[in-house]
């Protein structure tokens, strides 16, 4: 059992283990509220809109998008990178904070990991739909074949993506699932419904709570967690190399991998913040996701935002210092000034300046402002990808090729579709999975509060 002497209790409200179980399992046992149903319908509609986008894209071709022969990547890739960034939160939370011994993560890591899995699904969808011939997407896998045999090109960053993203998706889904096994067992034991018993029983893998179970469980968690620690850095580094390994001005830069990873953590944590604020408000989990949790996340955001600021200035400085006229044009005439000024400054202000407000304790304590800032960072990070993808491509090396880009309705619909899918996943998560890791929370209850109650636990 963990005793917090300095920082006060992680979980407030003098909970005992039974109370914890009751509190967290409550949404699973009761009928969902009105808001849940409404949001559920909205997310289904959004998903339908996305399905229309998929149908239209597949039926008519990529011509239905706003791309052209100069700007060949647009919303598809922007949203891919954005979602991948958000998908960073879960792992970063679980692994980094686990390694750093931050016990407060236990109230949040389950939700963060759920979000990760949903976001990575959304992200993985884009590279496939944005292919000219998605039905041949399997060509990217290095499988033995009768077509030559043709092998893939290991020099291409897109090939690295093919390895990185599915690995990340599988690993984070696995890590998430492992963490849920004891909780599934808890639900299995509590429920009276036969169906639920069967389903949760299946997923709990015959968990009996024996010390051998716990031993295996801990070992596996640490192992998978250890493996994943590398993935946190690798996935977004590789996504960054999709850009950095090109010769496009504004992309061709060595700063991209660390810069993207930090950006991903920034966007991921801000999305976690958004989610946590909603969760504790709606499910009255203020005792579990306390102000000090929010406070801690805000502090991390300040730090990440500072690194982002350094990243932005470094990029601009290097473009000037290199003396490369194409880089100079991209940064000084097409980002800081020029057609994309608005996007650039939204990005800079939202990601590097506004989060600095978290230096003030007052602001960190005001949930409304924290919530708004978390949304701003998400918006800013979206604009960062927009700035990177679109400004470089629209006006690159030969002015004769310069062209405009604006997304078509289909592209916007696809984005809405992924938002719908994401929200839907989160809603289902709220409804069917304990949104806080019950077993882990019990580990961080203040020792004096722990009262064993064999009957109920």
């Amino acid at each position, binding site marked *: 059992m963990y005793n917090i002497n300095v920082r006060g209790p992680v979980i407030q409200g003098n909970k005992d283990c039974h109370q914890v179980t009751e509190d967290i399992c409550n949404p699973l046992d009761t009928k969902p509220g009105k808001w849940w149903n409404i949001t559920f319908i909205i997310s289904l509609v959004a998903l339908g809109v996305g399905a229309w986008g998929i149908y239209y894209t597949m039926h*008519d*071709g*990529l*011509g239905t998008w*706003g*791309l*052209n*022969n*100069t700007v*060949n*990547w647009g919303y598809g890739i922007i949203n891919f990178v954005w979602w991948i960034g958000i998908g960073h939160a879960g792992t970063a939370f679980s692994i980094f904070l686990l390694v750093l011994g931050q016990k407060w993560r236990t109230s949040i890591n389950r939700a963060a990991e759920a979000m990760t899995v949903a976001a990575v699904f959304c992200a993985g969808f884009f*590279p496939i739909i*944005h*292919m*000219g*011939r*998605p039905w*041949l*997407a399997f*060509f*990217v896998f290095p499988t033995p074949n009768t*077509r030559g045999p*043709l*092998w*893939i*090109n290991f*020099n*291409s*960053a*897109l*090939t690295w*993506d*093919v390895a990185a993203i599915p690995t990340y998706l599988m690993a984070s889904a696995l890590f998430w699932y492992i963490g849920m096994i004891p909780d599934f067992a808890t639900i299995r034991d509590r429920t009276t419904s036969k169906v639920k018993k069967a389903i949760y029983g299946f997923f709990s893998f015959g968990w009996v709570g024996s010390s051998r179970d716990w031993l295996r469980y801990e070992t596996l968690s640490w192992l998978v967690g250890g493996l994943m620690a590398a993935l946190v850095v690798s996935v977004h580094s590789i996504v960054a190399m*999709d850009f950095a*390994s*090109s*010769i*496009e001005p504004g992309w061709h830069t060595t700063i991209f991998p660390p810069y993207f990873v930090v950006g991903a953590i920034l966007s991921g944590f801000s999305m976690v913040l958004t989610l946590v604020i909603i969760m504790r408000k709606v499910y009255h989990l203020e005792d579990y996701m306390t102000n000090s949790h929010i406070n801690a996340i805000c502090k991390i955001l300040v730090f990440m935002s500072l690194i982002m600021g350094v990243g932005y200035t470094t990029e601009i400085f290097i473009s000037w210092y290199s003396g490369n*006229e*194409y880089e100079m*044009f991209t940064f000084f005439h097409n980002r800081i000034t020029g057609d994309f000024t608005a996007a650039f400054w939204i990005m800079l202000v939202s990601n590097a300046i506004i989060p600095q407000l978290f230096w003030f304790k007052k602001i960190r304590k005001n949930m409304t402002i924290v919530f708004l800032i978390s949304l701003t960072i998400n918006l800013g990070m979206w604009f960062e990808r927009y700035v990177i993808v679109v400004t470089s*491509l629209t*006006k*690159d*090396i*030969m*002015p*004769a*090729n*310069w*062209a*405009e880009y604006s997304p078509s309705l289909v592209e916007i619909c696809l984005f809405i579709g992924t938002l719908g899918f994401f929200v839907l996943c989160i809603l289902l998560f709220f409804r069917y999975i304990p949104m806080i890791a019950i077993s882990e929370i019990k580990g961080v209850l203040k020792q004096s509060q722990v009262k064993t109650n064999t009957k109920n636990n």
Partner: protein
Amino acid sequence: MKKYWKSIEEKDTNDVSVVENQKDLSHKSTIEDIVADIPYKEPASRRDFLKLCGFSITAATLAASCETPVRKTIPYLVKPEEIVPGIANYYASSLFDGGDYCSILVKTREGRPIKIEGNELSSMTKGGTSARVQASVLSLYDDARLKSPLKKGDKTTWSQVDDNIKSLLREAKDSGKKIVILSSTIISPSTKSVYNDFIKAYPNTQVVYYDAISASALLQANKLSFNEQVIPDYRFDKAAVIVSFGADFLGTWLSPIEYTKGYAKNRKLDAKKTMSRHIQFETGMSLSGSNADERIPIKPSEEGVILANLYNELAGLLNKKALENVPKTSRKLKSIAKELVATRRKSLVISNSNNVHIQLLVNAVNNLLENYNNTIDLNNPLQLKQGLDADMDTLVSDMNSGKVEALILNNVNPVYDYPQVDKFIEGLKKLKISISFSGTLDETASLVDFVCPDNHYLESWGDAEPKKGLFSLAQPTINKLFDTRSAQESLLKWTGNNISYQNYVSEYWKKSIYPLQSKAGLKKSSFKKFWIKSLQDGVFEVANLNTNKKHDFNAKDLKNAVANAVKANKQIAGSFELYFSESIALGNGKHANNPWLQELPDPITKACWDNYASISIPDAKKLGFKNGDVVVLSTKNNKKIEIPVLLQPGQAQGALSIALGFGRKSAGKVGNNVGQNVFALAEVKGGNTTNFITEVKLAKTHKNHDFALTQTHYSMEGRDIIRETTLAKYLKNPTSGNEKHEKYKGKIKSLYEARPHIGNHWGLSIDLNSCTACGNCIIACQAENNVPVVGKDEVRRRRSMHWMRVDRYYSNSVDTPEVLHLPVMCQHCDSAPCENVCPVAATTHSKDGLNNIAYNRCIGTRYCMNNCPYKVRRFNWYAYTESSKFDFNMNSDLGRMVLNPDVVVRVRGVVEKCTMCVQRIQEGTGKAKQENRELEDGEITPSCVQSCPADALIFGNMNDKNSRISKKLEDERTYHLLEEMSVLPSVAYQTKVRNQPNKLV
């Protein structure tokens, strides 16, 4: 019950078991029964079950999934001797259509003409073609072509048409009124003979030549000056200084292919240290103007006064008598006059004005400079335009006054392109009979009684004499696709002569041209040999039929000309002058239904699928016009059109220009209602249709038009893309302007080992100094490589598919800009950035230095397109073939006949780009291998190189140190595009050199 039996045995034996057995089998419907019957010793084992499962699943899968539409290939029952499937046949022929003449080779595959190449044996076009010539093959497969003769718009048969027409013509003959053949200029001697035969049969027949864009004033002026109603032979190859007043001789004026050949020869700097100087006075920015060393924007009304002043300056320098009563002009002509005098007898002054007075002044200037019989040859006149506008006007008034009984229209469309259309239509209604030979139901043909569709020129016999003494033949390259008949054959039939036109041509040649053999310096041979040789060569040339005739200049009309020029030169405040230009792609609009031409961007504005009113930027600023603002343009005769304005750098202030050839109403699905028809705005002055009008007013509307532009950014942004210098600097230092090349040459380092190029290493070199940006290569590439047409909307979205594009940049001020053209295709980089980013290795480097794409491996991530610094790669955003959305040539079986079977038609979702015509490289290397010999330099030529009228492109093996390309690469002017990217392109460029000894503007 009757007994049914199959055999005697069955009948007689009455064996029940046989019948039972058969019955039994039919009952065994279930699979178990059949399996049970298989004579295995043991009951079905697990293995058998699996085998059966495997078999049935495979069978079901095959049956369900492998059903593809059956396309039957039917082999020849009796193979024609000359056709070997897979091997192309070439036939020499000639194209003459509304002003364009070109001696050509037609490439046919399995009996289908699919590509036009230039005929190098012609001393006129010398293997060059133009975009229109390249695109003419597609007009053969036009869905809009008439499939049978029509009577009052209804389908009918030839015999019926002939009967009807013959009796009507007989009536017309007896009526005593006129029968008129209204024809476009005829350069075919045999067709003229057909006309004469027709006149013999119907003596009241008159032939009127009518050209939509005529050289009427030029013909008249030469009649007045030299008593020869001809267009002289302009020798651009001999001209050291060219001063052109509005004549776009590189793009559209008279014989652009020939002129480009001659012009480019003098612009090249290989092994010589001089080049010609080109000064252009013009209103709108034309192709020639964009290539000029000096370009002076003038209003069209100023032209006469400037010419008169130029005359006086010259006269002053040459101590000749000056013209009187010439008002001074603000233009600085002194230095031009000095240059012209210095290059006397080697200079050339031309104008495209359709005003006799101006042409007279031009003649006077040339006479003063003693250019006649030097750069201008009246003895070998060009025959491409023979129509006098006045004749047409007379005809129309005759029609209206009832003097004409019958009208036969041959290759003319006056309802579309005659300025006084209403009068013409009025007159048409008063005729007893009107016949059109139009191959499509165009504006005029839809109003006439009979349409007797002529063959396409690729289906016809014919001959031509584009220039005195230069004869050429045309032969069919495909059987007639539809129930059409050549116009000549129709005319002969109506005279009662049933001879085929083929025989008629050969008989005519036997009679009139065969005897010229001795004059051409050929050995006398039998006619058959002569005929076959002429057919094979496509041309038969008798140079200098009558050389040394001197022409005296008659100056008596000059005074009147000056007076007229002065009168014309009045500036009306608050109104614009409107100049009618000819579009490079569409010309007079006859081939508006050709999607290749519609999508060919204008070399200057880079707009396609449109015409527009070009306006100068200061004028637009004054009036508050933005690009694409739709204005109502009204003339002083109160004719109004709505047209968008396009802000054009270099446009003369106070003058607009609009291209003719657009706004067809009955061209076909592609060409209808594209742009606005401005033929009707022209006026008739002094018997000639003017090429500009004055007192035009503009009124802004609230509409805005979105142009389909293939390039939207004007400036090079100070980047080192096109390198240029001046002749003086070049002579001092041949590397001038190209200093950076040394910096990068051979100093590019790579982490990777350089790829060895075994055998051949293909390279392409482009001389920016001789390239005129005419656009021939764009269409030549499109025809060769099955490049789809994407339509106006897709071009607006910047998704043009052309593999070859010509970029255009401006420098200097917006009033007097300098224009730079840059042809760009895939640069086939040796360290190609596209190759290493493809995840599936669909684009790879070949051993001979080509950057290849395996289309069926491409999944369309488009990373290669992003990573190409030249942005030459094209994506198939949609399925462009067999798609009703892209209802151009690739949506019908007929249109698809033009496809090159050697080149894959790309599917939706894959990336494509220039292959350097890999199919030609394969064919050439294969042939050399088969013949066990080395490839010769120049044996293989990509499509763009082959027909370049300026010979600006050279293709060859860079590994061969003696090849032309290797030598070109050592030229001091050679550089690579974006050398600093170290992608090692295989395409090289030579710097542009301008001949600007003293800047005029």
